[in-house]
């Protein structure tokens, strides 16, 4: 027995080492430190500075922990949720369906009472569209108690941009961007004739295709018909949807799209546009910061996607850019709410906008931002976002839709074939 002791001890120690860390965090008293997880590499220095200011003001330490890229961040948040190890404040990337699952699992604090306190002073600070992304209305299809579950830190819009200098080279008035789809296609032909590149965008990361397709779906058939399609009442083979798909074929045929756009990542698209190698870009308002760093002399302006129909107004994707949510199980949740209230106050929002070139979520901060930023922010009223619709399309349908558009652009399928294929996936998912 004596001879066995060291072996036994080693084996036991090893087992202890293996099983160490498998336990759950035990909550205790509130601490004086608030932990925030985020993925926003470009905003991290500004967040760190604000954390210092908050500590100097209140004595509460705020630890901003950056986990990038966003895919890795999302995985970390999911893993932490499964292990009940989420921090006091975190951001959630994904669809409204995922947001709802986190709420149902008890990970997210309902912020409605805090927002509506003192006559709703906190709630009134924000753009309504930005708040809507974090809100569940009474008729939401997810079964979530109506309320506000997140705090928008900044806002974004996804728009078209055009290079004014390249417009001049093409002999087009740089102060008059195309207003109709026919005008846009005409410019596409000029681009092709001049051996230039047209629209660049991160359509290799397929969600940006979805943005433009939805803009045109709003313009061609309006919101109600889109929602009816998601509900399964209107098929994707409807002529209006076929028309949406056809627009991509027309763009490709005219030369309005840059070559290789179907596998282009947004970083490359941004480089091409910033280096004046593409006439148009389709990008989010975060691009302001990117273009400024890549080419401070870039002469460009935002424009709405040229309308394809007069039936309904054009809408663009937008709303909350990034939002923070409070861990409902955190022992520091009250402190976390107070910090977010401070973070979204006017002075902090102006600082964030100046330091990061992102649009502030606080309406009162707009008067202090650069004119080009204000141009983006001015279109906030016509924005829409799937996370505000109260119902979500099946991810498999979205994938079939976006990949189908890629197939149209590469000339592999017709709009009708893609419409039929998307409808087939939709029917399969509804029957499941």
């Amino acid at each position, binding site marked *: 027995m004596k001879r066995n002791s060291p072996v036994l001890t*080693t084996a036991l120690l090893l087992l202890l080492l293996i099983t160490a860390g498998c336990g759950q965090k035990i909550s205790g008293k509130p601490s004086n430190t608030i932990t925030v997880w985020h993925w926003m590499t470009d905003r991290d220095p500004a967040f760190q500075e604000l954390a210092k200011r908050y500590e100097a003001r209140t004595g509460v330490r705020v630890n901003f922990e950056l986990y990038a890229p966003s895919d890795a961040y999302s*995985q970390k948040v999911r893993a932490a949720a*499964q292990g009940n190890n989420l921090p006091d404040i975190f951001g959630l990337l994904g669809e409204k369906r995922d947001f709802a*699952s986190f709420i149902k699992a008890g990970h997210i604090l309902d912020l409605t009472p805090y927002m509506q306190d003192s006559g709703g002073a906190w709630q009134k600070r924000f753009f309504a569209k930005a708040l809507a992304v974090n809100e569940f209305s009474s008729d939401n299809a997810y079964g979530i108690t109506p309320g506000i579950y997140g705090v928008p830190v900044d806002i974004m819009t996804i728009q078209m941009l055009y290079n004014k200098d390249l417009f001049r080279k093409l002999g087009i008035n740089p102060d008059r961007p195309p207003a109709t789809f026919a005008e846009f296609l005409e410019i596409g032909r000029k681009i092709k004739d001049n051996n230039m590149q047209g629209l660049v965008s991160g359509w290799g990361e397929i969600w940006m295709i979805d943005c433009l397709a939805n803009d045109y779906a709003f313009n061609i058939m309006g919101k109600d018909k889109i929602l009816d399609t998601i509900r399964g009442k209107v098929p994707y083979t409807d002529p209006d949807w076929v028309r949406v798909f056809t627009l991509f074929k027309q763009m490709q045929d005219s030369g309005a799209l840059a070559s290789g756009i179907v596998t282009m990542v947004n970083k490359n698209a941004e480089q091409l546009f910033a280096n004046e*190698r593409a006439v148009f870009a389709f990008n989010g308002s975060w691009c302001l910061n990117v273009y400024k760093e890549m080419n401070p002399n870039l002469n460009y302006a935002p424009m709405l996607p040229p309308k394809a129909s007069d039936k309904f107004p054009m809408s663009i994707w937008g709303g909350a850019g990034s939002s923070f949510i409070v861990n409902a199980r955190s022992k520091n949740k009250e402190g976390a709410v107070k910090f977010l209230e401070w973070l979204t106050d006017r002075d902090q929002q102006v600082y964030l906008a100046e330091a990061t070139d992102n649009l502030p979520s606080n309406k009162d901060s707009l008067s202090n931002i650069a004119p080009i930023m204000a141009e983006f922010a001015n279109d906030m009223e016509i924005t829409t976002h799937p996370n505000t619709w109260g119902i979500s399309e099946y991810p498999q349908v979205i994938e079939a839709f976006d990949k189908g558009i890629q197939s149209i652009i*590469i000339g592999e399928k017709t709009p009708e074939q893609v419409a039929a294929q998307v409808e087939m996936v939709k029917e399969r998912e509804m029957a499941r």
Partner: protein
Amino acid sequence: MRIKPAFENYLFVLPAAAIFAVFYIIPFIWVFQLGLYSWDGILPTKAFVGLSNFKEIILQDKIWWGAMLNAGYITLIALTFQNALAFLLAWACDREIRMKNFYRLIFFIPPVLSEIVVGLVWQWILDGNYGLLNNWLGQLGLSNLVRNWLSDPNTALTTVAIVHCWKGFGWGFLIFLAGLQTIPREFYEAARVDGANAWVCFRKVTMPLMVPVVVLVAILTILGTMQGFVLIIAMTDGGPAYHTQVPVLRILAAMRGSSRFGYACAQSITFGAILMTISFIQYRFSRYARQA
């Protein structure tokens, strides 16, 4: 008296067995178990669906089988082109040539580079608009060959496969070289005394003795290539459309894009079973080949 040494032996094996169980066996069982549920990876409740996830993969998921075919195509190119190149270079470096150590070092550089970096660099080289390759082709008067290598559905998968081979041939080279160096030189000398020329030496001495190494490299190539995805993420992210989708990208899409954790687990198990079957067949075939 017999029980005590046996107990001691088991005790020595216990740490390794525990580590293997905790990190391999238990996760495998767990993943299989999750494959029987419909679960989004967040909610505390899961719905038991039996084998329906597996049934859907096998009978309905055409994109999954398309991805399997794409991975099979890349693997076929790796098994032939990549391994032939690796063998040829290893055979050349095994001979008395000048600067052979320098070549060994050069050939082993691509495998040690980060896959994501290699993917991004090749994406830049192959860019249809401003890529180096098209630029060179233009300067050489081969403008008719200029194309969007990664966005063209006719070239995307083959281009990705060639980059994969460039990145991976160094591993095969190293293993082949080690194998060649274990063949006693006396065998070659004896063969030459018997009048064998270089080709006969290669066919009658090198090849039979290299069969186990070739099988090992082939198994590693199949397993490594079928599971590859990082290069593809960096270069095409599975596009255009589904032309460069591979099984691991589909598993990621189910897990992250669709929040179907249960389905993704079932895909992982199915994929693992397919790879195990291929490896087993190949192992049996190699035993047969050695005996023959």
